[in-house]
């Protein structure tokens, strides 16, 4: 399958990339890992006139901690997240997520930023980032700050299937994840039919504890709605509990009720809700185990 014709641009700086987007307008698409975009172009589901390849912007390829926040640059590959010691030690939920995305070859090129900017509710990082209360940093020619940068809360980022808060002339440059604070743990669970497939459903759970009592919970779901679904009632139900198996199961039921799955070749609506219930409960119990020092 041959993609439609387009003009390829390889800017050597972020400013140059933004200038290109500004000049080329809605006919341009950003090429990062390309593992969602290129298959779509081959199927002619996407036919951009221009591709702006940001693979040369190596200053956007980083995973580092600043004060109180983990910063993931737009060009950080999934495989880098998967292999990072910092991630394995302090943010195992991100390792959980990266290592179930597509397959190892895809992850060698696919980026965390692309997984989010694509806005596909079937992608795995969106739910994880919602549960983690992440922020998305974008750069464009205008905006709130002098540099044209703005920060978007993750709950405001996803607008619908393949639709995000990104303007046509903006580039996602960084994802910011709050550092774990005090006693906390997080986990992501996904059910897929085979390696490389999208989730039948996925559940991310982030728990904070005050002593033995849950003080804050983040629960979000993959591929059971037009955007990643934040299961607010499940979160509320966990706060104040000791997160027993019963509490986790109850939260799983509330998450299943909050999900909006559509029956397809991956299963019926009823089946997917049952999967959400089980995965949410498992993610919660794994998060609790990690908060207690397990891995």
């Amino acid at each position: 399958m041959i993609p439609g014709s387009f003009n390829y641009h390889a800017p050597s700086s972020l400013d140059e990339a933004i200038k290109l987007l500004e000049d080329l307008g809605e006919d341009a698409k950003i090429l990062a890992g390309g593992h969602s975009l290129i298959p779509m172009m081959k199927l002619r589901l996407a036919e951009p006139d221009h591709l702006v390849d940001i693979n040369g912007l190596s200053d956007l390829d980083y995973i580092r901690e600043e004060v109180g926040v983990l910063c993931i640059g737009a060009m950080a590959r999934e495989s880098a997240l998967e292999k990072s010691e910092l991630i394995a030690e302090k943010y195992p939920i991100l390792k959980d997520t990266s290592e179930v995305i597509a397959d190892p070859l895809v992850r060698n090129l696919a980026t965390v930023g692309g997984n989010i900017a694509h806005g596909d509710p079937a992608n795995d990082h969106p739910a994880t980032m919602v549960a983690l209360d992440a922020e998305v940093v974008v750069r464009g020619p205008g905006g709130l700050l002098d540099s044209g940068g703005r920060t978007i809360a993750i709950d405001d980022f996803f607008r619908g299937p393949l639709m995000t808060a990104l303007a046509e002339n903006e580039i996602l440059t960084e994802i910011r994840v709050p550092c774990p604070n005090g006693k906390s743990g997080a986990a992501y669970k996904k059910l897929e039919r085979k390696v490389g497939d999208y989730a039948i459903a996925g559940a991310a759970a982030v728990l904070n504890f005050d002593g033995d009592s849950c003080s804050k919970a983040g629960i979000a779901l993959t591929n059971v709605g037009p955007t990643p679904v934040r299961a607010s009632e499940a979160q509320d139900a966990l706060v104040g509990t000791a997160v027993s198996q019963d509490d986790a199961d109850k939260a799983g039921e509330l998450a299943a009720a909050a999900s909006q799955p559509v029956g397809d070749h991956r299963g019926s609506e009823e089946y997917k809700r049952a999967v959400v219930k089980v995965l949410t409960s498992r993610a919660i119990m794994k998060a609790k185990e990690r908060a207690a020092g397990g891995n």
Partner: protein
Amino acid sequence: MATQSITLKINGESRTAEVEDRLLLVHLIRDNCALTGTHIGCDTTHCGACTVLLDGTAVKSCTVFAVQANGREVTTIEGMEGETLHPLQEGFMEEHGLQCGFCTPGMIMSSKHLLDHNPNPTEDEIRWGISGNLCRCTGYQNIVKAVQYASNKLQETTEEGGE
């Protein structure tokens, strides 16, 4: 029709080509360079038959544009053999790691990436490492053995080399 002039190294040999922007790397390798060891299987980023190394990293060449390889180094199955077969190639022969052979070039390139980063993988790590490559004949059993064969042989060679 947008075209670019690109220069890249394929299996150590420098090549310059005038390519259409939309040309996929796998088509550059097979059609422009006549290196047909790299196969096109699914053409949808699933099967891994088209796997090559791009600056040493295993990627599916049906999902990379040729222009993206400008200034970079590509290694295909043809680049694996030196004066003798590479231990991975030998392993696939000795352990019967193939039947129809269509997936084999991709399997070998993925395994090369795996062994470069993890010279002594467990069986689980091998299965994980080749999970982006589909084989419809073997059931994978002998492919895993072939990679183990190569891992052992490469380590013996390293030890003999006194490193």
